[in-house]
């Protein structure tokens, strides 16, 4: 589905990613784990095209999307839920959702999405900025999903969110993933969350993928200490 080969990217002249290579099969959930500042967000930004690759290539369904702009990559089927959620503050919840599918033809997926995330229903007329962090995260996810992406890029969906909502998001993602066969790249620091969803976990360190581990291994303190210990 998605093949990343020797990807380099950075900010201005500062290189951050250093030859990142991996691929994701259709319907697979790949977790990406790493300390703060190791380049997880940078990797997702390079995939969606917010940052231009300075080397390497990204292929989506066999097609080289590296030269495409962010908007074109999104239309080619990449969905992005950024760290910090980026809800449009002055648009209502309804309008935020409409933005998510505004460039996609066909029938609106919003009614269906509201069945999946009923918490959003009473909030539809509220401005985005009036939502709590957890509500914003759910909205960000729903807004991305109504665009019906082929591959979902999720950046720390549990960051700063209370445990009950984290569970709710995990259950919804699990359900959607099996129902729709979603392909997901999940950046996370919450080990339980990532273990519950991912079929494979890549460890990123200083802009490189240094290991691939099974999600079950995250229960093993020795392995966690080896890759994530300080």
């Amino acid at each position, binding site marked *: 589905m998605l093949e990343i080969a020797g990807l380099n990217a950075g900010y201005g002249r500062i290189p951050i990613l250093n030859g990142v290579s991996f691929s994701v099969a259709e319907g697979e959930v790949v977790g990406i784990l790493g300390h703060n500042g190791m380049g997880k967000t940078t990797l997702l930004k390079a995939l*969606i*095209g*917010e940052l231009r690759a300075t080397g390497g290539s990204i292929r989506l369904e066999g097609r080289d999307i590296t030269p495409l*702009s*962010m*908007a*074109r990559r*999104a*239309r080619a089927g990449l*969905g*992005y839920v*950024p760290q910090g959620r*980026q809800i*449009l*503050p*002055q*648009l*209502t919840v309804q*309008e935020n959702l*409409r*933005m*998510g599918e*505004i*460039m*996609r033809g066909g029938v609106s997926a919003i009614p269906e999405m509201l069945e999946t995330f009923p918490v959003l229903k009473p909030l539809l007329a509220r*401005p985005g900025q*009036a939502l709590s962090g957890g509500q914003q995260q759910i909205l960000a996810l729903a807004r991305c999903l109504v*665009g019906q992406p082929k591959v979902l890029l999720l950046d720390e969906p549990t960051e700063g969110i209370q445990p009950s909502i984290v569970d709710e998001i995990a259950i919804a993602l699990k359900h959607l993933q099996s129902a729709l066969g979603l392909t997901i790249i999940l950046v996370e620091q919450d080990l339980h969350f990532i273990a519950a969803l991912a079929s494979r976990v890549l460890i990123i360190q200083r802009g490189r993928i240094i290991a691939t581990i099974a999600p079950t291994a995250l229960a093993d303190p020795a392995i966690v200490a080896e890759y994530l210990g300080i």
Partner: protein
Amino acid sequence: MEQTVIILYQVLYSFSFLVLICLGLAVIFGMMQVINLAQGEFIMLGAYVCNVAVKDGVSLWLSFLIAAVAVGLFGILVERVLIRFLYGRIIDTLLATWGLSIFLVGGTTIVMGPTTNSIPAPFGTMYIGAYGIPAYSLVLIALAFVLLIGTYALMRYTRAGLIARGTMQNPVMAAAFGIPPQTVYMLTFGFGSALTGLAGAIIAPLSGVSPTMGIFFIAKAFVTVIAGGPMVLLGTISASALFGSISGVVDYLTSSVLGEICVLLVAIVLLRLLPSGITGKFRRGI
């Protein structure tokens, strides 16, 4: 009774005039955050296009349309060769658009001459008692309302309006939804320019047409949009209503110079009391 009608007319007229000269700026400065110092010259260009078209025998109404399209296209050109390199760079934008403004005034003076032209206002004079008003000013009032409501409806209820508002709030996220932000910026600037050019054409029969006419409007327009605050359209409406009422009443009672001074004083006091403008505390709206 008669006096009430005249004052009401004055207020409506001042309000409509302000709305016309502010609407394009509300889009370009309010929504897009581009400080276009050549905004007044866009008004002037609209007036000249209208003037030339009318002289060539085109009907006034069609000339309005031509002015809107011409200045809209000119705006797109300016966005492509100038503004698009300057988003987020306030000082550079000020300098570049100031230069553009001087260039446009100079260029127009050379091509069209320094004198004031006039477009005959249709419909003659109407009387409220003994008080004569140009009947065309009622058309101006009506057009201001149509444009105001039209722009509001476009921004609030249409897909294009949603795309524009969303993109101005967060261009990177817009791109993540598949929207090309540069195109949206270009078209929004073009739309704001078209509104400005159309305003110039509409006011031309009453204000006259000269290369330096923009100077009379630019400051007033900026003050109004700034006083309106972050909800650009609602803000422009409320600030225009406030300032329009003041200048309407004061103009009638005394002279128009005093009206301008009063508006300026009220604007200063208002921005002291509400630093982020009239709509600064509104929770939602556009």
